[in-house]
């Protein structure tokens, strides 16, 4: 099984995130692309591990997206991925491709065969955003919010202000929603 993961920005933004794996940008066998937009790829060699608690294997199958240049570090040396995501001994590869929110780094575990793991939460369905809205309805009720996955970009009383703030952060087409107080009630129809 090819454990393919597109990482969650919030996971990497946590204080506990440890950047322990060095990625050497080099040609490698192409892994199946979930989106067919691959523009750049490379392999990852594990660096000496200082601390890296492993995560349950089933979590490898959960897809999430990293924003290049934000929580994953990409520079001339390579790409640095928090070992908290894949554990200490994984052999990783990465691919940079165009995404809804700009360039994205997709990291995957090369262990096993070639069959890609299917996402439980397909891309582009706003599931992460809906999860955020559900979790924060009480604290943001009556406000407009702009989200990138489960990350809050902006919040305010006016949709244009929130939208423009998200655009200023480099998100060309942000997800924007009004956080209603009664969204959980069934709709009666027109």
């Amino acid at each position, binding site marked *: 099984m090819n454990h393919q993961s597109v990482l969650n920005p919030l996971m990497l933004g946590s204080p506990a995130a440890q950047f322990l794996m060095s990625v050497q940008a080099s040609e490698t066998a192409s892994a199946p692309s979930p989106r067919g937009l691959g523009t750049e790829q490379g392999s990852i060699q594990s660096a000496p591990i200082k601390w890296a608690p492993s995560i349950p294997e089933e979590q490898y199958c959960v897809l999430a997206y990293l924003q290049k240049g934000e929580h994953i570090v990409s520079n001339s040396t390579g790409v640095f991925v928090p070992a908290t995501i894949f554990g200490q001994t994984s052999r990783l590869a990465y691919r940079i491709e165009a995404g*809804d929110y700009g360039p994205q780094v997709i990291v995957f575990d090369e262990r096993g065969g070639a069959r890609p793991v299917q996402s439980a939460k*397909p891309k*582009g*369905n*706003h*599931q992460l*955003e*809906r999860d955020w809205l*559900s979790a924060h309805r009480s604290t943001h009720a009556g406000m*407009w919010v702009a989200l990138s996955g489960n990350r809050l970009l902006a919040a305010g009383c*006016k*949709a*244009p202000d*929130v*939208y*423009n703030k998200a655009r200023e952060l480099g998100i*060309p*087409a*942000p*997800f*924007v*929603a*009004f956080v*209603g107080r009664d*969204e*959980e*009630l*069934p*709709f*009666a*129809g*027109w």
Partner: protein
Amino acid sequence: MHNLEFGIRHKYDDSVPGITVPVHLEYQGSRVQFDAKIDTGAELCLFDRGYGEALGIEIESGYRKELRTINSTLVAYGHEVTLSILDLNFDLMAFFYEAPEIHRNVLGRQGWLVKVRLGVVDYEQLVYIGSY
């Protein structure tokens, strides 16, 4: 026996009311993403005016339309936009509510439903969409 073919199958979230699909709305190069409900009972595609304002649309400058609801009436204004739903693109007149307190986004017949073939298997939370 009748058979239909669809290019898109989408599993929708049954934890929120309605059949919800992700949409992109574009107007003069500006784009915004949000969720909308498929509503075969709605004549038009109706969106929160906040999205129109965010895209730079002067809502009241559009085509004014008075609409009947289950127990009242409302006013919305139509503007030409591009709507993308699950990789299908539609140029249509979308309507934005005059009232800022209405936040329900619906995909109705004119402009959208008339341009697609639609299948729903609600027991499995699956919606099938194909261009007509």
